[in-house]
């Protein structure tokens, strides 16, 4: 048997369905955000882990110049090592038809007659390698797709100076190459870097590695101490030219994907709570005003003898119904969109399967926040109604007293007509209510603004990186450091306008227990093509007496300008140097370390060496230049700035940065929800007055002015406040989107402010039009017959 109160509940909900749905929608958006991000992050973590396990990704990597295979047995005997695989890896240049610039590739060996013990590959299409045929290769699927290559196609590549023809038999994916970048480059790009897998014997022959390996892969026993194993590896491999063993966490692809996921983790912990907070705040306002409007009915129920508790429970159910519908919808759509987004990332990272997982805790938090904030609004409104005797509550409320309110309208009497005075007086009489509405709208606007700020931060980051910091057209890198005389050859080429040398040296920076594996860029003292900047637009002079660190490294290594830092060089004679940090540079892309090239070479005792050069070229002659560069045996690769920019843009738009579009959409929904609800509630509260005006002969437009004038003023006050709130939020949100690879400058510029203000104004006008429709449809008779 349904109690009469519950029937009332059902009918009240039905009667207020539009408003209830609008509230539920705001809750749903907050919950959706939380559940979606949680599902996405958990799923990516789980999927990554499972992918690594299924394809036995190594825990440690030990590159070496050339070591005999028998050494693998000694490696296997190291304490904590569970499995070992030796392989041959080498660089290659691939010719792509119709493309002047050569594409760099990494060739990796696979054992011929067994499965690899570590770093297995997933064969996406085609067949496995035939051990007897030395011209067969597997090609990285992402690269093949980028160039329209299929199993059966032929590929020509230069390995160790010799050009060879290969037949692609299959397309493969590997957890080792989720992200692929050419050595020395930062931005991953499917089309500009390839991975080739081929039989061990064939590859060993190509690189003179018969009976030897140049990279050992190590799987660890559970709980084995990685640093001890790495140290043991280094000791073993040192006589053979070991380049320093490193753990999975320093493996390039893993580092990128881990960074992207941790970027999403930060986004998850920063962004959804902000959305939930704004949604909760809005909910509180709306529910409290909705309950206040029920005053008459509450008085009636109390007059019948219902206790405060019973009435309270009745309205709590009302709030609960709306909050639960919103939370349920949010959870459902959160799961769906989380799954869709995770599916998208699965494609993006090229993982062959997806494990979708949402932490039940996320649901609980989401539902609890919605219910608590909705109930808080209800409780506060109910308290003020309960304070009245039933008789007073049942009577229409006495006219609100305007005699003691701050009366700006009275002061401006001569200039204002009565409707304008009504607008101003109402704002003046209940500044608290107006203030709450202002804060609500400003919070929504702040959210939108910070999202727009993050958006423009992305493009600003791009702009600074590719027009202010990097002003070259192409970067040439050599297979190994060469004499700087090689540069004359480049400078003499027809169409080359400017040549600027650089030296790249792989290093590990250490400050106490903190370390960073990266590369030092040796630049000339006053570089023109590739600069270190501070304050976004001021170039830094590259000093001889120390290193310049990017901001991200300052934070990662916890050093300041003036501190000393240890530089563990991982190339050549591998000296360990100590140098002061002389300046901190902006870092929008990557985490660069700069040093003057002469000083760097001197410290390495390798004078006049260059790793490559940045070029400014005549674009009409670009193809000719690339053709010549391709034929220079010393050139390992050429990267074009335009390609790098496209690739970075792609990562920002399709990688972790992609969620910003969804978040911006949600922010817009929330902003609109707040503005619309404010207008809708104001209308409900004033329907009676508006009907009176209409009866007196005011036109629809004149009556709507009284209502919308108030909304207009509130919105106008909210705009500057929204800009302040946006400033506060943008830093947190931008930090959430920044990764090791790129950082987003956190700032709100005038254009973003204008954009957000415009969005709020559009929302206000749209809400105004929707509410104006209600004013137009006012049933004059009904509105006047019943008070409230």
């Amino acid at each position, binding site marked *: 048997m349904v109690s009469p109160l519950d029937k009332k509940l059902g009918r009240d909900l039905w009667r207020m369905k539009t408003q209830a749905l609008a509230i539920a929608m705001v809750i749903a958006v907050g919950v959706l955000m939380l559940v979606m991000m949680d599902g996405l992050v958990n799923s990516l973590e789980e999927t990554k882990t499972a992918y690594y396990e299924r394809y036995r990704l190594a825990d440690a990597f030990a590159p070496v110049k050339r070591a005999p295979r028998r050494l693998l047995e000694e490696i296997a005997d190291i304490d904590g090592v569970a499995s070992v695989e030796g392989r041959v890896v080498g660089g290659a240049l691939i010719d792509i038809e119709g493309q002047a610039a050569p594409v760099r590739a990494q060739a990796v060996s696979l054992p011929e007659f067994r499965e690899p013990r570590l770093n297995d590959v997933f064969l996406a299409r085609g067949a496995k390698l035939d051990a007897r045929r030395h011209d067969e290769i597997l090609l990285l699927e992402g690269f093949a797709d980028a160039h329209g290559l299929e199993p059966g196609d032929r590929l020509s590549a230069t390995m160790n100076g010799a050009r060879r023809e290969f037949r692609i038999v299959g397309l493969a994916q590997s957890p080792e190459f989720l992200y692929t970048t050419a050595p020395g480059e930062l931005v991953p790009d499917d089309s500009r870097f390839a991975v080739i897998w081929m039989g061990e014997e064939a590859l060993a022959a190509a690189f003179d590695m018969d009976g030897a390996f140049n990279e050992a892969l190590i799987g660890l026993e559970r709980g084995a101490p990685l640093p001890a194993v790495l140290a043991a590896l280094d000791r073993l491999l040192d006589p053979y030219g070991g380049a320093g063993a490193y753990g999975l966490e320093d493996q390039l692809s893993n580092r990128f994907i881990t960074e992207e996921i941790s970027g999403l983790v930060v986004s998850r912990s920063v962004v959804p709570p902000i959305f939930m907070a704004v949604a909760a705040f809005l909910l509180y306002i709306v529910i409290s005003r909705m309950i206040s409007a029920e005053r008459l009915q509450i008085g009636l129920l109390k007059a019948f003898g219902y206790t405060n508790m019973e009435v309270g429970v009745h309205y709590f159910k009302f709030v609960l119904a709306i909050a639960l519908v919103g939370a349920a919808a949010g959870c459902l759509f959160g799961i769906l969109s989380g799954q869709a987004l995770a599916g998208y990332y699965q494609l993006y990272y090229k993982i062959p399967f997806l494990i979708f997982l949402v932490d039940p805790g996320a649901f609980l938090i989401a539902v609890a926040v919605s219910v608590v904030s909705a109930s808080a609004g209800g409780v506060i409104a109910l308290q003020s109604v309960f304070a009245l005797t039933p008789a007073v509550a049942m009577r*229409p409320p*006495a*006219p*609100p*007293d*305007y*005699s003691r309110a701050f009366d700006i309208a009275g002061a401006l009497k001569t200039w204002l*007509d*009565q*409707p304008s*005075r*009504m607008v101003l*007086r*109402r704002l003046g*009489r209940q500044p608290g209510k107006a203030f709450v509405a202002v804060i609500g709208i400003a919070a929504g606007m702040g959210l939108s603004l910070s999202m727009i700020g993050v958006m423009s931060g992305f493009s600003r980051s791009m702009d600074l990186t590719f027009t202010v910091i990097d002003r070259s057209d192409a970067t040439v890198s050599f297979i190994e450091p060469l004499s700087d005389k090689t540069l004359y050859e480049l400078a003499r080429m027809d169409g080359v306008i400017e040549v600027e040398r650089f030296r790249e040296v792989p290093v590990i920076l250490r400050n106490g227990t903190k370390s960073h594996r990266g590369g030092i860029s040796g630049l000339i003292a006053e570089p023109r093509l590739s600069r270190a900047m501070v304050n976004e637009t001021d170039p830094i002079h590259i000093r001889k007496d120390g290193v310049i660190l990017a901001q991200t490294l300052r934070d990662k290594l916890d050093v300041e300008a003036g501190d000393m830092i240890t530089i563990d060089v991982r190339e050549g004679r591998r000296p360990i140097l100590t140098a002061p940090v002389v300046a901190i540079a902006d870092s929008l892309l990557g985490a660069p370390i700069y040093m003057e090239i002469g000083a760097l070479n001197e410290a390495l005792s390798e004078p006049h060496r260059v790793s490559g050069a940045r070029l400014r070229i005549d674009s009409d002659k670009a193809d000719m230049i690339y053709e010549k560069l391709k034929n220079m045996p010393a050139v390992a690769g050429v990267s074009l700035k335009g390609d790098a920019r496209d690739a970075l843009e792609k990562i920002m738009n399709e990688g972790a940065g992609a969620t910003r579009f969804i978040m911006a959409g949600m922010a817009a929904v929330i902003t609109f929800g707040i503005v619309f609800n404010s207008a809708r509630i104001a209308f409900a509260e004033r329907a*009676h*007055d508006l009907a*009176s*005006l*209409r*009866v*007196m*002969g*005011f*036109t*629809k437009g*004149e009556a709507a002015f009284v209502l919308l004038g108030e909304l207009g003023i509130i919105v106008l006050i909210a705009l500057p406040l929204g800009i302040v709130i946006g400033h506060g939020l943008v830093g947190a949100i931008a930090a959430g989107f920044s990764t090791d690879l790129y950082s987003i400058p956190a700032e709100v510029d005038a254009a973003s402010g204008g954009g957000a203000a415009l969005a709020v104004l559009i929302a206000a006008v749209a809400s105004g039009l929707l509410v104006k429709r209600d004013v137009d449809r006012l049933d*004059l*008779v009904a509105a*006047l*017959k019943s*008070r409230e």
Partner: protein
Amino acid sequence: MSERAAFETRGLTKVYGEGPTAVHALRGVDLVIPEGELVVLLGASGSGKSTLLNILGGLDRASGGAALFFDKDITAMTDRQLTLYRREHIGFVFQFYNLMPSLSAEENVELVTEIAENPLDPVEALGLVGLDKRRDHFPAELSGGEQQRVAIARAIAKQPTVLFCDEPTGALDSVTGRTVLGALQNVNRELGATVAIITHAAATAAMADRVIIMSDGAVREMTVNDAPQSAEEIEW
């Protein structure tokens, strides 16, 4: 009394809803209200008085028949024409006053005088209901009777052709009620406005030029009162 009819209705009907649940609020009302008269409408709840007044006042639309205001058919007017009709010719007084709480007494009156063509001075209008001294007070500072008199002042300030009052004394005690009725009679006598009052208090009929008794959505009886009493003389 003038011979012209301010209002004339012919077969006026109003149906709310449709099908078996339809409510016939007016079932063919034929009546004439001459210009300048004070008319009292009596009848039980649901007899159709308010519906009739709402249609004549341009607040509601008829379902059938015609309602003429000086030969113009109100039932044929568009929304916009009805708004102008109310603005130019009609004043309303309601049971619950419907003052704007955010405006003082004088400003409530000005609300109407600002949009009227030939309005009274707001202070003069308040003087007609004896409230010129309290013109700066807000509704919250006025008693029920005072609020209702401000509502009347607001309604008459535009010098309406017709003043419609729906239970103007319904929320008031007898002494206050008599003051309010007196104010309405003043408006009728001194401004020459046609005044129509809906009431449950049959005694009010004594002050009317014409009494219309409604039941079941039709006019049951109409009597002309040759010697209307003044409001002060009415027995409650």
